[in-house]
């Protein structure tokens, strides 16, 4: 299967929610050591809702497009709903099949987001 679908390439070339949040309340990152992919997540959480989210980092088209699409998807949902999301949600979102090794790239944003939930910024 060609994993470089239009949608993936578009998000890769023109990522959404890319950058950092000045008012972030939670922040963390995840790495893929075999390829050096990195996704950092900033979130602004208030009243148990992901009010705002942004990502930064670098890596392959899959990791970066997934981060772009994921941040769009989770903006406005509850902390519990974000916690419950898993790799199947990522695959459904990307609409492609990924081999075991490439799956790591796809779920990097999920890992970074879950880590960030546990990593509130101390003011």
């Amino acid at each position, binding site marked *: *299967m*060609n*994993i*470089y679908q239009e949608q993936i*390439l578009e998000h890769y070339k023109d990522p959404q929610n890319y950058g950092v949040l000045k008012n972030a309340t939670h922040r963390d990152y995840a790495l893929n*050591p*075999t*390829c*050096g*992919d*990195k996704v950092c997540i900033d979130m602004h959480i208030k009243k148990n809702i992901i009010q705002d989210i942004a990502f930064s980092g*670098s*890596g*392959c*088209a*899959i990791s970066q497009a997934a981060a772009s699409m994921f941040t769009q998807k989770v903006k406005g949902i509850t902390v519990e709903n974000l916690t419950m999301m898993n790799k199947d949600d990522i695959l459904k979102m990307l609409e492609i099949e990924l081999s075991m090794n*490439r799956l790591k*790239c796809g779920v990097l944003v999920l890992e970074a987001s879950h880590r960030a939930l546990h990593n509130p910024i101390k003011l």
Partner: protein
Amino acid sequence: MQTINYKEKFPMYVAHPDLIYLDSAATSLTPQIVLDKMNDYYTQYGTNISRGVYSLCEEATTQYELVREKAAAFIHAPSDQEIIFTTGTTHSLNILAHGISPDESDMHILATAMDHHANFVPWQNRTKNFEVINIDKDYRLDLSNLAKKITSKTAVLTIPLISNVLGTINPVQKIISLAREINPQIIVVIDAAQAAPHIPIDVQKLDCDFLTFSAHKLYGPTGAGILWGKKEKLQNIRPLLTGGDMISEVSSSKTQYRNIPHKLEAGTPNIAGIIGLGAAIDFIQSIGLKKIQKNEEMLTKYALNSLRKISGLKIYGPQDANDRAGVVSFTLKNIHPHDIASILDTQYNIAVRAGNHCAMPLHIETLDIPATARISFGIYNTIEDIDTLEKGLYKVSEIFS
């Protein structure tokens, strides 16, 4: 020059007739002749070694010990008793890092900026006094930096004979004589994991103290390898593993170890794997390393020329094809190497490696990039493989334009 086609000797090409395998530096494909030899062990004389007096066990022991002679001849070691069977380069290097001068905790150990993690992390863990030799702009070891860092106190110098990322063939013989001039006591370790399948090795000419390589990069099986060392140096190594086969006498109050090589070979080894390694050495010798080397030089030159034509493609490694091996790492514009590898795989059936190739310090600290794509050659590769690669890379470029 005509390339020789060895593909038919490798059953992987029967299962995947269109495969273009360009990742032999990670692991080479295995020829039928090696598989047959291992199958013979399991089907004809699959018993333990050294532990029985019945004839099947004698046969297993004989076949196993024969590999010691083959390996000694392969690297021109003066004695087959200096050949230690290990599970591979990583295991060998851990034996050394653990076992050299075991009572010293802060000895000065020097590695290089182009080392594989296997020749980096064990040494770094071993001492507080670990240093790294830089590489220069042409991706070679900086010999003046090396001369500066070696002192009369340096205990160990460890160098890869060939870099698994840059393809650089290090002038090891020259380096060793330079090192011994500064410090005659220095122990020199050579990581020959990438070199053994590609260039002839003579440990006596090199005058190193230890040298190691893995079977699986040499058309042999995984989980088998060689550690060679000068006899008296091996004798001084504290064993990493202790247990059966490596002892001469055990009582409740004390244990006496056997001599080398057995002292460093505790437990039942990978017998079929070692026998497979012997067959792999035979396979290589039957073709001749000089011929293999010549063919790979031709492929490397051809590949460098093909790749240089592609706009935005940057090669990391010595520019001159003459003293580099058949390993070429590159980046293409700002396209992530993972994406390059995925597209080559799914659209062209080309297997290339993407990532830091177990050389994170080199990528992050010296090359200043997180990852590269890497092609590497084995005896089955042809000019047509490289032509398809070139086509594939143009396609990659187009997808991300």
